[in-house]
């Protein structure tokens, strides 16, 4: 008997995207039975948990910010892409590193709103378009979600999707 076509609402509220663990510095995914907080691959990053819909794929640049919108972690790929080092931007404001791309209609308020919404309980990942602070003509799509522990916002730069 042939299967009947089904109508589904997408995304289904019942299809929760699974969480994945990844290194905030090199992006490596540890083995399931490896519960260490520090990445065993690069030694330089903390292992964080985020929804698979947000977590960076291998080599994708990412930045972690806390509830005060200050930078807490920068991945190696983000260091290379943005020409910064984690040490020099640690505890700086997000807008000192990434500014809203106003040419794409993204204002500061909407970027902040996207971050706040993304880290709210049960909210879907948000998207925005940003540029490196102090640079014009370069834009990155960014997906924003929650990561932790402790709870923080994860920004993953999709530099080929603008």
């Amino acid at each position, binding site marked *: 008997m042939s299967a009947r076509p089904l109508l589904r609402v997408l995304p289904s509220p019942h299809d929760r995207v699974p969480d994945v663990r990844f290194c905030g510095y090199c992006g490596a995914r540890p083995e399931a039975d490896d519960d260490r907080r*520090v990445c065993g691959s690069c*030694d*330089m990053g903390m292992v964080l948990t985020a929804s698979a819909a947000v977590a960076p794929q291998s080599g994708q640049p990412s930045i972690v910010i806390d509830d005060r919108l200050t930078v*807490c*972690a920068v991945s190696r790929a983000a260091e290379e892409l943005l020409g910064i080092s984690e040490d020099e931007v640690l*505890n700086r404001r997000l807008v000192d590193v990434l500014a809203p791309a106003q040419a794409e209609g993204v204002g500061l308020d909407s970027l902040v709103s996207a971050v706040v919404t993304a880290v709210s309980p049960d909210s879907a990942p948000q998207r925005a378009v940003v540029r490196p602070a102090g640079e014009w003509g370069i834009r990155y799509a960014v997906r924003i979600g929650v990561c932790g522990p402790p709870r*923080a916002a994860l920004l993953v730069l999709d530099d080929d999707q603008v």
Partner: protein
Amino acid sequence: MQQRVRTLKTSEAAQLLNVSPNTLRAWERRFGYPKPARTAGQHRMYTHGEVAALRDALQEGLSISSAISRAQESLRADTQMLTGALSAYELPRADAAMVAALSLRNVDRAVDEVLLPSLVELAAKHGEDSAPWSFAAQWAEDWLKRVQRMTPPATRRMGIVIGDATGGALDLQDLNVRILELFLARAGARVLTLPVSGVAGLGEALNAFRPDLVVLAGSVDSDEDVARWAYRARISAGSLPVTLFHRSTLRVPTTGAYPLSSSPSTAHHEILALIDGGARTEAPTMSPADVSAGPERVQKRNAS
């Protein structure tokens, strides 16, 4: 102050942090933390407090950098505690601050990272002619004496004579010299400090002490006094390497002496390296002709 600092081997520290020993070495290279001391065999020895502070910070950290920054911040609290106690003229609390500092570090690092920065901060804030500084300086001198008394007898043959040209107990330079003495003594060296203002009996003292190196420390006494003292020292002890601590190179006309770092910790390593590396031939020395001609000839030579 009498408690021993609990230390961990690399494998123990790595186990406490749930990382590999290689990770610890990688962090030391990149972040300079945790900063281990070395045993006589050059094995790393981590202080338990430092590792424990990092372990706690890692639980709350989103990156290694931020965790290390947080751990260092918690250690810096000792400096604030000591500064606060001395500013409030509370001796027991000042002693307690150093006990807390010593629970996380060895004596050298407690002095280098807590005592000295706190005293420098107080001197800068109040001035070296102020009551808070005077109180703090006297407490520090007393504390250093107590530690000095617990230092084991010299284990090395090397002898270092310090020509003290500082302004006395209330001079910040004097505190640096006292700390340098302590570090050298803890490294097993024999140390003799003599004021440059007097040369009476200097020959006998140096003949008995047989120093390997001279440190001219402080910039309060005049160049003439320092030159006279150095000249007498050289006559008695022979051609010795001369180093300068907290004294400008240009202000000493006796030699082109080796300037040491202003940090007592770094300076004591430089001194040990000079002696261990055969400083007698490498560091500037006074020639026999200089000695026979007296200080005037040396002054002329250096002036030219």
